[in-house]
């Protein structure tokens, strides 16, 4: 399995487009991970995520390499890689990607929306592998009378 061998500025530069393109694989992997709570069971989805990421970067490198390089070098220049300092390069990169590959940059707030994911994987029962739960208490058999001398918590009611 090949690693996505890029640095953090590169990732952040491409993050928005990556979020909208490789959305399916990512969401499936996260759903699997969160439901099964076990990374060993999600290696297949993880592999798909990795493939998708590698494909994504390969496509960018194939088509829009120069504007992307400019964009992420601009981001890399500042300490915190703030996106607002590099708007010009971002616009260029967006235009280039839109022309050549037809990808649109997602609007603000689109990537943090809650989505429903359709998988063919069944929901696991008992992912925590807990022991069988004890029986609930039987309902009270006797007749319940009100307390004989009033409430015993009258003076200690805190």
């Amino acid at each position: 399995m090949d690693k996505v061998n890029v640095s953090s500025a590169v990732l952040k530069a491409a993050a928005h487009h990556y979020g909208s393109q490789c959305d399916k694989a990512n969401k499936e992997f996260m759903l699997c991970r969160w439901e099964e709570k076990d990374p060993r069971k999600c290696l297949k989805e993880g592999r798909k995520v990795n493939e998708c990421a590698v494909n994504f970067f390969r496509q960018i490198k194939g088509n829009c390499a120069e504007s992307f390089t400019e964009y992420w070098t601009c981001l890399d220049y500042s300490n915190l890689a703030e996106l607002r300092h590099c708007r010009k390069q971002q616009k260029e990169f967006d235009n280039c990607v839109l022309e050549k590959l037809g990808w649109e940059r997602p609007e603000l707030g689109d990537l943090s929306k809650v989505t429903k994911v359709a998988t063919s994987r069944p929901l696991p029962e008992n992912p925590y592998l807990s022991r069988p739960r004890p029986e609930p208490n039987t309902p009270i058999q006797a007749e319940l009378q009100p307390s004989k001398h009033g409430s015993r918590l009258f003076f200690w009611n805190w």
Partner: protein
Amino acid sequence: MSVLMVKQDMPPTGGYGPVDYRRNLPRRGLSGYSMFGVGVGLMVFGYWRLFRWNRERRRLHIEELEARISLLPLLQAEHDRRTLRMLRENLEEEAVIMKDVGEKMFHTDRWVSPITEELFNLRPREETLRKKFGFLRYV
């Protein structure tokens, strides 16, 4: 004395002009209320600008958070590497320390996230330290 015309410093003929000696404290400028109003207005304007910029900052922050959200292979890549490393090292450990492997660490079959010490057991100590304190800048 003689009527000789000596050059002296005398007042001009006809005397000096009138001297304006009255008080000159003109009433000018804004009144107190309007100065107060100007101050309040400036403050309101400043607040309005501040709120607008804060909203813009919130939007920028959301954008940066979304960049982080969408970089899910972070989690994926790290976990893959971790799991593979653990499995490889467990095999190594079995070959090296043949006796101690029999007992389980926990009484359950669940996946337990490994701790740093366990992962970096067989590696040089500086790697553990780097993993634990690499991000830390203070001492």
